[in-house]
């Protein structure tokens, strides 16, 4: 399998990447592939696609609501892999990471990794599967993206890094998605500590909602993750029955991408 993640990070030429998150199936399974293409058109370098779960205990109100919309619209992991296939038919390069909780993957059964790779998925982030329990699921050739957090001290870090691949996801604040925002100086120090311990690229997320916040993080990290703000936008657009949700997503992502792309230049100046 071609390593889309490594290729994408190598192609960034020193600037930070933009990682965008949406809930798969939100607001409907039919609109998901068009929304994924809109993320790319807006300038997303990597996409995290959320696998909705009834009990998203690491997520704040925005992504909880996105999960509920998607589940009510009938999403399942099988359907989500179908959407990934549909996306891949038109986009062979953008890395796609599945993010979610362990139980839907466990329920899918032992064929998950092979089916996911065949569909065109590149990796998984399972927020309730710490290194200690990773053996529970066979993830085959998929990248297993691990999370480091403000509570991950030097004693714990080697455990997190063992078996990590693709990139390291730094959760910038202790908390759930889409709530508090981290201080850029704290993030800079944390990223420096992580980069001293691993050669993997470090992406930073949780609480990054605006172009300005994204730019501040992008000055220090290999990639910035924005999720709740996009999911909120999708929810609001769906609520007023917008007939161009992908277009609205693309416009917002463009503003994030422009901020992220300018960040290194500004900080170098």
């Amino acid at each position, binding site marked *: 399998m071609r390593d889309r993640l490594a290729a994408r990070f190598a192609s960034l030429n020193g600037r930070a990447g933009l990682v965008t998150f949406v809930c798969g199936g939100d607001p409907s399974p039919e609109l998901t592939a068009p929304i994924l293409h809109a993320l790319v058109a807006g300038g997303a370098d990597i996409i995290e696609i959320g696998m909705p*779960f*009834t*009990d*998203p*205990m*690491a*997520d*704040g109100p925005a992504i*909880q609501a996105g999960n509920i919309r998607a*589940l009510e619209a009938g999403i*399942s*992991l*099988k359907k989500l892999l179908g959407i990934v296939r549909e996306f891949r038919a038109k986009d062979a390069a953008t890395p796609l990471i599945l993010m979610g*909780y*362990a*139980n*839907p*993957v*466990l*329920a*899918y059964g032992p064929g998950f990794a092979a089916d996911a790779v065949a569909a065109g998925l590149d990796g998984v982030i399972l*927020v*309730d*599967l*710490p290194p*200690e*329990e990773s053996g*529970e699921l066979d993830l085959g050739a998929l990248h297993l993206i*691990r*999370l*480091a*957090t*403000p*509570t*991950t*001290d030097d004693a*714990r870090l080697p455990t*997190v890094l063992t078996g990590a691949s693709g990139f390291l996801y730094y*959760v910038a604040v*202790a*908390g*759930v998605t889409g*709530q*508090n925002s981290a201080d850029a100086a704290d993030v800079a120090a944390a990223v420096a500590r992580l980069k001293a311990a691993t050669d993997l690229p470090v992406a930073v997320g949780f609480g990054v909602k605006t172009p300005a916040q994204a730019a501040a993080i992008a000055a220090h990290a290999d990639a910035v993750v924005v999720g709740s703000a996009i999911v909120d936008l999708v929810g609001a657009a769906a609520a007023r029955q917008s007939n161009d949700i992908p277009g609205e997503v693309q416009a917002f992502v463009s503003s994030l991408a422009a901020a992220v792309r300018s960040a290194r230049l500004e900080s170098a100046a």
Partner: protein
Amino acid sequence: MPEQISLAEPASLKAGPDTRGHFGQFGGRYVAETLMPLILDLEREYRAAKADPAFKAQFDDLMTHYVGRPSALYYAEPLTKHLGGAKIYLKREELNHTGAHKINNCIGQILLALRMGKTRIIAETGAGQHGVATATVAARFGLPCTIFMGARDIARQAPNVFRMKLLGAEVRPVTAGAQTLKDAMNEALRDWVTNVHDTFYIIGTVAGPHPYPELVRDFQSVIGTEARAQLFEAEGRLPDVAVAAVGGGSNAIGLFHPFLDDPVELVGIEAAGHGLQTDQHAASLAGGRPGILHGNKTYLLQDADGQITEAHSISAGLDYPGIGPEHAWLHEIGRVRYEGITDDEALAAFQLLAQVEGIIPALESAHALAWVVKAAPAMPKDKIILVNLSGRGDKDIFTVADALGVKL
């Protein structure tokens, strides 16, 4: 020459979990990375506390003078005569301070919280019994306390909500999902991950990430340890059967654990709601399959896609789509037999105990009693059934009146 005979003792069933918190394939630590260092700290602190005579002395002293232990073991002679079969003993956990077994665990956990220097307590609650017990110990030790409770449960358990507030706790309504116990636990986990530095999460049952299932079991095992000794004193022998209701399963594991290596039949009663053939029940062993939720791998009510489904029971304390991992394991190895009792059967047993014994049981405990009502008449009079009367039923009178069509 005789054939080789193994002199090794059979392994104790009480030895679990293993060092990673697994009971067979169940248990473990399925939590967000932010919580992992804290969970590992908690385990270290619990090991230290277990080995510390001062911790045990303080726990025992509070059990005696604050909780009122030991709780009585009562020969239920009228009920025995009424049913005309096996001799029935009730372990009277409903006589504890706060009216249920929940306080045993809360005392243990708040002592751990104090040892760890935590300054704020959170907990989830369904019926409000664990919330009341947590608010009680938080008041006793002067720590601020926030209880997460589903908005629907708040509406149907008003007396317990008021009790928690009287005890100084903040009761935070949870409007996510079905607004019941599972959603309250999600919200408590979200609070914990956000306030991980100063907050201790007092989990109310033998579920959640390791070491919770182990430490809650250890604190609740006082039930079975006392009952075993009390029955030896009364009858000079072990019971033939021990029975308890199972939601998450803390009162049941507390009764069963000290008997695991004994020749005693153990029966756990799941809430069969409107019937196991319907989708309106809370029997995760009978109607679920293994999955991962709330920090552990265990049997869960879920659909084919691994989405968690809603549980139903007339008893709010059993209204949860999962079960503690040690129960999942005891079920899988066949050491404990798990059976279902419906809402209607539990309601009948609730009324029977009130009329025959003058004891109003909790609806949870009424599930165990309903099994006794079915099983005891067919057993010889020299057999002994030990039942865990895990809580008193005052909290349930509104639910029961409603189910019986009585307006209060």
